[in-house]
């Protein structure tokens, strides 16, 4: 979620990064540490693609990044990376996958997960409300509902949130990563009944 109305970024999202065409991640923690790891992840994914001429399987990328994070907890006398990630991606072996990792380098595969501020509250909400076999629209609605209940701010507007999806494009069958535009976000929030009603003029 954006920092506030004075914040201006040249990128499409503040806390979401595309690592490869089939892989994306969301970040929680120290952004400067995250930038280093994202760069490493992108290079690793491309080097794999160069050697094997196919996209890197999601778990392999997550594991390599977590191996790097773990190294900083055991060797060198350097401090660990203060970043937790949520990785979302698709590969031909296991389809769509979600992984969560923390600064220790520990990672796990999840059906639904949350990182960052108020993540325990979010995680317990997800535990209650997540059901298998949800459609893309249902998943988006659930994510917005959980965020609205766990975020500290009183009202939820499009400029306070970011939404990105990794999905199969219906026409071409390709996996795509797309960040939700502010207009589309406004419509989604209205449909979910989460926006404040406009004040009477």
């Amino acid at each position, binding site marked *: 979620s954006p920092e506030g109305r004075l914040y201006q970024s040249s*990128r*499409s999202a503040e806390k979401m990064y*595309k690592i*490869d065409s089939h892989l994306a991640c969301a970040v929680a923690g120290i952004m400067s540490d995250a930038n280093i790891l994202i760069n490493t992840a*992108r290079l690793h994914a*491309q080097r794999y*693609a*160069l050697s094997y001429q196919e996209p890197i399987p999601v778990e392999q990328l997550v594991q390599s990044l977590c191996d790097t994070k773990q190294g900083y907890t055991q060797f060198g006398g350097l401090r660990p990376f203060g970043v937790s990630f949520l990785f979302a991606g698709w590969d031909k072996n296991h389809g769509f996958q979600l992984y969560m990792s923390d600064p220790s380098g520990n990672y796990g595969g999840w059906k639904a997960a949350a990182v960052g501020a108020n993540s325990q509250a979010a995680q317990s909400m997800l535990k209650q409300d997540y059901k298998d076999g949800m459609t893309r629209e249902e998943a988006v609605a659930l994510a917005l509902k959980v965020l609205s209940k766990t975020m500290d701010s009183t009202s939820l507007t499009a400029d306070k949130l970011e939404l990105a999806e990794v999905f199969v494009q219906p026409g071409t069958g390709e996996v795509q990563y797309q960040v939700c535009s502010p207009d589309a976000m406004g419509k989604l929030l209205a449909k979910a009944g989460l926006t404040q009603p406009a004040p009477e003029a």
Partner: protein
Amino acid sequence: MVGKNCFAIASDRRLGVQLQTVATDFQRVFKIHGKLYIGLSGLATDAQTLYQRLAFKHKLYQLREERDMKPETFASLVSALLYEKRFGPYFCQPIIAGLGEKDQPFICTMDCIGAKELAKDFVVSGTASESLYGACESMYKPDMEPEELFETISQALLSSVDRDCLSGWGGYVLIVTPTEVQERVLKGRMD
């Protein structure tokens, strides 16, 4: 070859080892992004490896900048990559063709160590390059529409490769306009 708000890039389809023909469907023109293509003539393995390395670099550029590379920038990238191997080069002559800012066509070629040559009309490379220069020079006119450009480039390609024993076995032509990309396979003298 450059046309009116469009460009065409073409190649033959033969892969051979001196006198033996090994493949008749060899791909020499590669896509970098929707409006940028690179043709690589010369040693086949170097053409494939060079393309894979360039795709790697362009992918990282796209991820960081969140946009496609401009053709002029890409040409500089290719030139730098080739010069890095100045004393053990890739045996390839690239042809770069793309639509740049405001969909202006851009073409250029370079030698195997990265000497860029920009042109406004056409660029050629490969074993039949001398014939190609002659054919293009006589057949080219500026500001051709896509259909006429296709005819011109096809005729220039087929007539030139017919004079070269190492080129031929059909042709592959790609016409790129701001709105669409047309691919066509040509049937010439299959020898």
